[in-house]
């Protein structure tokens, strides 16, 4: 009787989720396997369909060692994302702390800060960037005057210039993360803070010892979310390269598939580095 009941429940449950299972197999699993096969093949699109010839690691070798540009772009993506993701997360945390203060009109600020999430599409950002609307006036002059490149190693100077010129991008990509932190902050128990302050803890101490540990799960969620948002954003130079390789007659789809897989793996490495570092901090406590 009990087994029959269980079976019935499972079948009803399946009747709700079968569409996802079918969809996953057809639109995610099968394409994933197919691009994996493509990435080891020479792919030709002919009138009778797709023709593939197995060529082993050739596409990967070409992408990583022959195409200097792709390797460079990938390295830049890796470093920039590694730097910008913690900055976005910390910025979102600071803004959410400010918004968590009981003041009037914070709803207006929240609305303003979230607005970019709605209007951010690749072409809009590109137009604004080309126009110079995403850098505050004067920043370019500061960069030129400070002669960063003469006094610092190339990579570090590049990084600082990148941060100074793209900080509106940092702001514009932190809306969702800010809301996630805010939701977490609102769940915190105020009696915990009262107890801490009776024990003589300052606000500064209770932030580090109470608020931050409580927000740890949200920090991880935000790290993951930010990496993914940055990685799939259509202006990402790696994506543009994968895209153009796809239509390129010389390289073809196999090559582009190999690039996409390399990119996916780099992204996974990046994700695990950031998550592990955040976790590490948690266990050290």
């Amino acid at each position: 009787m009990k087994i029959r009941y269980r079976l019935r429940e499972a079948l009803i449950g399946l009747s709700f989720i079968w569409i996802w299972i079918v969809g996953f197999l057809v639109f995610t699993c099968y394409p994933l396997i197919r691009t994996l096969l493509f990435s080891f093949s020479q792919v030709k699109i002919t009138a009778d369909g797709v023709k593939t010839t197995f060529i082993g690691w050739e596409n990967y070798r070409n992408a990583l060692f022959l195409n200097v540009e792709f390797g460079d772009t990938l390295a830049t993506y890796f470093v920039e994302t590694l730097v910008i993701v913690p900055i976005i997360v910390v910025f979102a945390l600071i803004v959410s702390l400010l918004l968590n203060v009981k003041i009037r009109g914070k709803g207006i600020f929240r609305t303003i800060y979230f607005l970019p999430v709605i209007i951010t599409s690749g072409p809009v950002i590109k137009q604004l960037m080309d126009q110079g609307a995403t850098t505050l006036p004067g920043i370019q002059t500061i960069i030129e005057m400070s002669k960063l490149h003469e006094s610092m190693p190339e990579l570090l100077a590049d990084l600082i210039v990148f941060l100074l010129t793209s900080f509106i991008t940092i702001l514009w990509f932190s809306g969702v993360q800010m809301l996630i932190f805010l939701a977490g902050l609102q769940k915190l128990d105020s009696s915990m803070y009262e107890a801490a302050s009776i024990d003589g803890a300052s606000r500064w101490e209770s932030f580090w010892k109470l608020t931050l540990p409580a927000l740890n799960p949200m920090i991880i969620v935000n790290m993951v979310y930010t990496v993914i948002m940055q990685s799939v954003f259509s202006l990402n130079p790696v994506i543009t390269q994968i895209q153009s390789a796809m239509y390129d007659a010389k390289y073809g789809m196999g090559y582009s598939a190999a690039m996409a897989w390399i990119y996916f793996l780099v992204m996974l490495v990046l994700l695990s580095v950031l998550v592990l570092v955040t976790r590490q901090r948690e266990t050290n406590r």
Partner: protein
Amino acid sequence: MKGIDRRTIDKTKRVLWGFTGEGIVYKLAVYFLLSLIGFVYLYPLFYMITYSFMNTEDLINPLITYIPSGFYMDNFAKAAEVMDFLNTLWQNVLASFVPAVVQTVSAAVIGYGFARFRIPGKSVLFALVLATFIIPPQITMIPQFLMFKDLGLIGSIFSYIIPAAFGQGIKSGLFILIFYQFFRSIPKSLEEAAQIDGAGAYKIFAVICVPMAVPAFIISFLFSMVWYWNETLLAALYLGDKLTTLPLELQNFAVTYQKVFPADPNAQTGRSLNEAINMAGTFLNIIPLLIVYFFTQRWFVESIERSGITGE
């Protein structure tokens, strides 16, 4: 005398700083910071709006940096003509509204299935749902494109609708997660009561759970719509030449401009593409979303609290 002094000092201190840092000085500092950040947030938009009203003389005039000499609407007329605004807008609405509805409904059904029933291997399946969020679309879009091409669906809105219907649309995993969390937060006792009254699982879902999940539906629909609206990668690939969206038109703005207003050596100045027309095009591009946001912003900014997506 001294005692009173100290008391007044203490009181002033309390008003200014507050016991737990909720005093006037503290609040003013917070306001200052929030406004400063708010200004930086909106700066690109201010820039875009002011530039979009400038005529050619304003652009050249070094004295005019922010405020144009008048509301010069010609930029908008040109930009609208280049983007074929009304026509594109309609297609854009179609290509975001319909997939958003389909995606929301399927996410609700799937999320309910995951939230309520014991299914063998469910945790693995649900982990895969979340994993689909991490997989970049670049990796699956070539085979998907070939598949839709074989089916003759390229250039039709069905290449958007079909994956959405099967829970594989843009960020579907996230929406399934929203519904999963939402349905789990509804007390089970309500459903059990209905079950005793003889209602079947589908009836319970449709009559009891769906009406309770209205906030989740609104949030999912709004976010889906915005993400489908702004999508350019998949749009360029799947919608082909037959359908177009405002972001796609903006992407090709400069090229289309040359076609619509070909350079004419005999023509007077002001015919070629300039910053003002670019900004007017960008502005036209985001106006529909700004209007949507103006009316629905509460749903957006309260989405995460309401959907309980951060978990307990």
